[in-house]
């Protein structure tokens, strides 16, 4: 057979045409859409949760049935449920409530839609950090990405609250009360009240400021703390302390940040789970872990058992958290390792476990949240309290928020000054 080159060319052209057509058709297919607000459960999984909740929702979980939920509780939580005397309580229980998908503010949605598509990391630094807001990595692939979501959560942008708490020695029942008036404001990363993402008048480049004045115990009344975090991630936080007894202002050194706050199970970095810049740690995303966590707490239902290290009446719902392991980059940090369990919807750190430098599991710090109205009529997830246990020392410190107000308000700049520490202090 004689090879007809005209047929070969025609064949090639036909193949080329088919390939081109296929490519063209492929380009018309919609790209996989980036989902911005991914709920903890959806579809079939949600249906399974609802089915499971038919058995458990509304139930009181205590010594008698805690074992059946051990897959959703941390070891120390289970231990205390089964043996409340460990924390000097006659009983310890919580209420299991149905899972509720979190709601979002207008600003959170707007900023997430705007920032998530353009968010990128340069190593472990978020590019254009100062101007980012919302949940910049909605479906995080790494621990760093999950932590930047946490970092962008401003818990209402600002608020004033009074946490009332106790430091408890369960072995003896010795306890000391503590109460403070706390004003916190975010200057960048804002997503609840205008303007967002940044406050325009910010010459010192604040990122977050906290002003706190103690209301008790008596020796510490009027003691004040001013903490300033900057947008510049290479700049250390500034922290000033007013000692009412001595009537002196003291700068707090970085080394002191690793010490316990007022005898509690928390160091300064433990506020909200992690209070320092994201890039201070190296992270590893461990995966998803379902835990019974507190996200929609009704404060009226909380009850502290006197001289114990527990609250009864916590309202826990099943949440598929992101578990992120963190190791501080500098040596000789207070914690050898930490694991944060993040809310996959609002990205708060719901629970944190820590290990000491020798690798012993040490503390369990739980942050409870509640949904509260902002001054704009929307809702924000703000702290309802904390529950902190020292497993090695068998000690507890806990607080609940007595009241919270002015969520989203822009507080005057002079609130966050050294002079304000000694104003109205006696």
């Amino acid at each position: 057979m004689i090879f007809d080159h005209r047929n070969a060319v025609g064949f090639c052209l036909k193949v080329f045409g088919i390939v081109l057509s296929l490519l063209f058709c492929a380009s018309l297919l919609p790209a996989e859409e980036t989902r911005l607000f991914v709920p903890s459960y959806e579809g079939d999984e949600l249906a399974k949760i609802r089915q499971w909740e038919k058995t458990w929702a509304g139930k009181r979980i205590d010594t008698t049935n805690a074992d059946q939920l051990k897959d959703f509780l941390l070891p120390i939580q289970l231990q205390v449920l089964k043996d409340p005397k460990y924390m000097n309580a006659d009983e310890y229980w919580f209420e299991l409530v149905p899972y509720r998908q979190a709601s979002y503010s207008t600003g959170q949605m707007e900023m997430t839609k705007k920032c998530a598509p353009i968010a990128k990391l340069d190593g472990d630094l978020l590019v254009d950090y100062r101007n980012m807001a919302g949940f910049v990595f909605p479906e995080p692939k790494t621990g760093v990405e999950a932590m930047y979501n946490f970092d962008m959560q401003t818990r209402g942008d600002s608020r004033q609250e009074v946490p009332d708490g106790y430091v408890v020695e369960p072995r003896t029942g010795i306890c000391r009360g503590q109460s403070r008036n706390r004003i916190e404001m975010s200057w960048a990363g804002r997503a609840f009240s205008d303007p967002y993402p940044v406050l325009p008048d910010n010459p010192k480049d604040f990122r977050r400021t906290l002003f706190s004045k103690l209301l008790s115990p008596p020796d510490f009344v009027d003691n004040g703390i001013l903490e300033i975090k900057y947008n510049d991630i290479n700049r250390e936080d500034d922290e000033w302390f007013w000692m009412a007894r001595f009537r002196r202002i003291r700068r707090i050194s970085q080394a002191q940040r690793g010490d316990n706050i007022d005898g509690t199970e928390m160091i300064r970095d433990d506020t909200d789970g992690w209070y320092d810049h994201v890039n201070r740690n190296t992270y590893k995303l461990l995966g998803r872990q379902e835990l019974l966590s507190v996200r929609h707490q009704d404060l009226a239902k909380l009850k502290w058992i006197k001289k114990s290290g527990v609250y009864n009446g916590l309202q826990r719902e099943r949440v598929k958290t992101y578990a992120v392991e963190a190791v501080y980059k500098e040596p000789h940090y207070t914690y050898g390792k930490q694991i944060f369990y993040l809310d996959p919807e609002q990205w708060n750190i719901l629970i944190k476990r820590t290990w000491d430098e020798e690798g012993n599991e040490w503390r369990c710090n739980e942050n409870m949240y509640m949904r509260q109205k902002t001054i704009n009529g929307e809702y924000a997830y703000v702290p309802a309290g904390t529950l902190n246990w020292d497993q090695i020392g068998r000690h507890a410190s806990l607080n609940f928020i007595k009241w919270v107000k002015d969520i989203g308000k822009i507080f005057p700049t002079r609130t966050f000054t050294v002079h304000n520490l000694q104003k109205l202090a006696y």
Partner: protein
Amino acid sequence: MRHNISWGVLLCCTIVLISAGFSHAQTELFNGKLRVKGLLDEYIVFREHKHHDSQQHDYGQALVLWRHRAQVELLFRLYEKSDTIINFYTWLQYYYESGPDVNRKLRKAMSSGQRYRDYQAPFWDSDDMLNECYLDINTGPWTIRLGKQKVIWGEMELQRTTDVVNPLDLRYSSPGIDDLDELKIGIWMARVLYQSSLPGDLIFEFIFNPGDYKMIRLGIQGSDRGSPSVPNQELGGLGVTGAIKEMYDKSEPAFALNNCEVGFRLRGMYNTKLFGEHFEFLWTLQYFNALNDSMIVDDVEAYSDWAAEFAIARGDGVIRPLPRKDIYDAKRFEMFGLGIQTFDPILTEAVIISEFAYFRGLDFNKTDNRGLTRSGKIERDFFTYGLSIRRALKARFFKKLDHSAQGYVDTDLSIFQGWYIGNVSRVYQTFAYGQRSSTTFTLMFRTHFRNQTYTPVLRLLYTTRNTGYVSLSCTVSLSTHWLFVVGYTQTYGNDPTQDGYAAARDKTRTYVKIKFRF
């Protein structure tokens, strides 16, 4: 005596019973408009007697101080609207020192008049029971405080450099044992602060004392912190220092406008970058024009006559009356001060506090006899500075003792130096005669155990005149209300002419404090 003890104890018990009804740390009444806070405390000191001078009464290992004290702080919210808040604050106290009632030798060492009027109860001045009492007006950037108040202008702790507004009451305690705001004596004054919007967060402060002079209160002769008593009673039951104190009291300037005191302070923040790191400085500039809270002999002739008479009296045993006229006077001086506080992230990773003060026109008595007699008046300027480096260190040993503490030890190393400007060979000084300069080092370690239930503190002080003390204390905080402190102070010194610590080298003491706070 028993009557007084009973009254004091009954008072304390009554207050405890009333306050026991308060279950919270502080109480708010009338819808939060009235805040009530207070404390009851017992302060007991045991002293080990080592001084073998025959003029010293031998206390033995005895209780030398037992102070019962009750304090109540009331804060009234008088007005609140928008950014204006007006409060009325008052801090009341009553105390009774029953050491002389318990220790007979202590009682005999003190004159009865001074013991009752100037020592055992708050009767030195008519307003002594009023620790502070002022109207506090806060409106916008303004803060105005009118009334009896204590002002702390320095940031250093054990030694004062620029903190000179209020005099100290050192009759019972000293810095490190009692808090500085408890040791200070309140003065009636006006204090105005203005928080500006100028760059650097500048705060302007002005204080005006219209003439309320208060002198420093030193230990009463014969008491724990006073000079030793003397066996001769030629001064009608007083020893020499007791007599001088009587003359002091008589000469103390009255409330008068020409005894007024004025102060200005400017405070601000300064941010800069040094060697690639951010530094934030809290700085202050101060000016203070006031009467010295230590008086000097103003009428040297009258004093010399009295001293000569007393020298004779010590031989013949005949009582001589004290001079009728005012012999002492408080002289005016000026203080220019500078304070800086910052955190050094590079070298020391510590908080650094430094203060500088220049005292212009300090008046002293002149001596022609190497410190033995006063022959006139002489003026000298004085420059002093203090430098403090504070850092939290980690001590692994402590971590082994208590896991929760993590071995954190707050450490403070300080140096204080001062120089008289000019020759001091003719300056009369009770201690350190002829010494133109002084250098003091202090070192403090503080840690905590069991979640700050136990807080031990070790303080050391050393002067280059080879005097000083070591003090170890432990605070135990068992609940919101109860606090216990146990302490031991060992003083040392060689030459009584050089330093008060040396003159009181037998003042090694053990003390206990029991506090109930509400």
